[in-house]
């Protein structure tokens, strides 16, 4: 962090080490453990949780209805048709996967960079990743039209003797997304094993002791185990880093490899990845700000976390801005009639409003205000910004998918796109499913990694021999 910000007597700085405090003052191994395990091990479910769970569950039910009707009637109930053959399903797929990316960035990339502030938020960011991937992964499956043939995507020795076609980015997607989902789940689970051990030891009810005991695999905290565990975590982080960059790159190939103006561009991979992280951090803020308030976790998810996430969003927001700029520039510089028309149509055509919603909510509002430290540490403002950016990123995918498709080369084949209620229900339904899963996670699993928080407490510092004898 910039040294210019350090002021004398700043309560955010540990006087003993002169370093930024990651965890609030006065926290000990025991207090941290108690605070986090109480959330899960208490037999009393907060009323607020139940109310939210009811709302989220209703949302998930909407999804169930929408998907059931879809399976009965087919994809004709959606607005997709020629020329807009990719509609909400692909928009939502890309949006959800993108949101997941920040979780991996926080848990893996920031671990490699030894950014210890990530420790408090890494677990629920990872959970967010997994639930986002669950929501995302559903869309291609239900979009294929005949989902019961979904297994054709995989290289299976079938009696038909038909095999997948490995030159297609759509098949690359199958492997990228399935690997991403698997590695995210493994990384997440491995991270929770020691915390399950803590729950097993602290639980009062027999059932919870057995439940967490089995999921902890008998973890007992031997330092030999810890060392292998640390190595495996670092390796998983090192593997997840190139993986997360590759996933959105491969998704951008779905578009970029096509010859359509608006899709056929080399800026897509980096611009998709940056956009993914941008929206993902926004989603982490959307989740973290109410959570820390509700569960009184202010000493673990501090203002500094919010501030840092604001900075990451500022940086990735500018990469995204560069992407938009390059699209506009290339539309002119390519001297291609089709490119130029596509861009004009995108900004000033009948669906131009969506482009300006995107520009306002992804560039204008966040990138002018996130410079201010005062605003970055204002919780209500950051919550507002997180919603704005998530909306903007959804519209970015809408603009890419729909406005590139609806008016292509031949005016005779132009069409339009108007989402049906089933499109909206499916989208709202995934929001419900995501929230439902997240609420279950918060209630039953350790949402802050206790072992990683203990590691960064001042009392975890090994004192040299003489000093240790003194106290």
């Amino acid at each position, binding site marked *: 962090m910039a040294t210019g910000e350090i002021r004398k007597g700043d309560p955010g700085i540990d006087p003993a080490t002169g370093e930024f405090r990651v965890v609030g003052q006065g926290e*000990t*191994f*025991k207090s941290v*453990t108690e605070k986090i395990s109480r959330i899960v091990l208490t037999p009393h479910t907060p009323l607020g949780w139940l109310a939210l769970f009811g709302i989220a569950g209703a949302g998930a039910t909407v999804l169930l209805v929408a998907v059931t009707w879809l399976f009965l009637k087919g994809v004709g109930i959606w607005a997709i048709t020629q020329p807009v053959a990719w509609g909400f399903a692909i928009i939502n797929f890309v949006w959800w996967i993108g949101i997941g990316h920040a979780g991996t960035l926080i848990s893996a990339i920031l671990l490699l960079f030894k950014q210890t502030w990530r420790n408090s938020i890494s677990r629920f960011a990872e959970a967010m990743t997994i639930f986002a991937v669950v929501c995302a992964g559903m869309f291609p499956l239900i979009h294929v039209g005949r989902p019961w043939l979904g297994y054709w995507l995989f*290289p299976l020795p079938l009696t038909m*003797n038909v*095999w*997948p*076609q*490995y*030159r297609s980015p759509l098949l*690359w997607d199958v*492997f*990228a997304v*399935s*690997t991403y989902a*698997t*590695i995210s789940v*493994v*990384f997440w*689970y491995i991270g929770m094993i*020691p915390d399950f*051990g*803590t729950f097993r*030891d*602290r639980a009062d009810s027999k059932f919870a002791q057995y439940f967490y005991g*089995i999921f902890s*695999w*008998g*973890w*007992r*905290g*031997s*330092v*030999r*185990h*810890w*060392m*292998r*565990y*640390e*190595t*495996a975590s670092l*390796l*998983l982080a090192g*593997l*997840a880093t190139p*993986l997360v960059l*590759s996933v959105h790159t491969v998704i951008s*190939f779905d578009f970029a490899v096509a010859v359509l103006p608006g899709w056929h561009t080399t800026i897509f991979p980096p611009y998709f990845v940056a956009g993914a992280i941008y929206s993902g951090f926004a989603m982490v803020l959307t989740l973290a700000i109410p959570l820390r308030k509700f569960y009184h976790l202010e000493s673990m998810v501090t203002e500094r976390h919010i501030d840092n996430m604001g900075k990451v969003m500022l940086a990735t927001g500018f990469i995204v801005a560069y992407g938009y700029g390059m699209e506009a520039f290339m539309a002119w510089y390519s001297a291609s009639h089709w490119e130029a028309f596509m861009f004009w149509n995108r900004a000033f055509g009948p669906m131009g409003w969506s482009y300006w919603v995107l520009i306002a909510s992804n560039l204008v509002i966040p990138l002018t205000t996130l410079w201010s430290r005062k605003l970055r540490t204002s919780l209500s403002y950051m919550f507002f910004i997180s919603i704005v950016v998530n909306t903007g990123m959804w519209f970015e995918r809408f603009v890419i998918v729909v406005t590139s498709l609806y008016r292509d080369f031949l005016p005779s084949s132009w069409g339009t796109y108007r989402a049906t209620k089933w499109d909206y229900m499916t989208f709202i339904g995934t929001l419900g499913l995501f929230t439902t899963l997240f609420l279950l996670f918060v209630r039953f699993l350790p949402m802050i990694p206790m*072992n*990683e928080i*203990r*590691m960064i407490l001042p*009392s*975890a510092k*090994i*004192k040299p021999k003489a*000093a*240790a004898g003194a106290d």
Partner: protein
Amino acid sequence: MPSREGTYGLLAEFDNPSDLVRAATQARQDGWRRLDCYTPYPVEEAAEAIGFHRNRVPLITLIGGLMGLAAMFSMETWISVIAYPVNIGGRPLYSWPAFVVPAYEWTILWAGLSAAFGMLALNGLPQLYHPLFNAPNFRDGATTDKFFLCLEALDPKFDLVESRRYLETLSPTSVVEVDY
């Protein structure tokens, strides 16, 4: 096979990691070899102190990754060239650049799974029962805020009375005997 009855070892409890590291270093210097530390979070210095410097997780991960790479690349080649040759826009059947992406993903997939499950296997987990869970103070602290040093009965130097006296010289908060 070691006997599965009698004493598993002696367990000394410490309040802070510095005392544990000091005690473990001392014990190792004094010739103890069958000993282990138990901590609520990774304490690298304690592992160093008991002479545990390297592990084989990276090697397993490398082998797993290479196997994933080889498996996917050869499967792609076999499918595209032999099992189901399809002419896609006149591209050669062995269009290897397109095969790189899934092979890359499987390298990561297999390496990641090897790292995770290799680590668990080397640790001997899952192991739902362990004699240490019998110690009255172990479950109370080992996963929360206490630090333990265990001298195991399998060490040739082990003697119930002598070793307990020895552990007490390392100024722990308590020493308890752990049975199988």
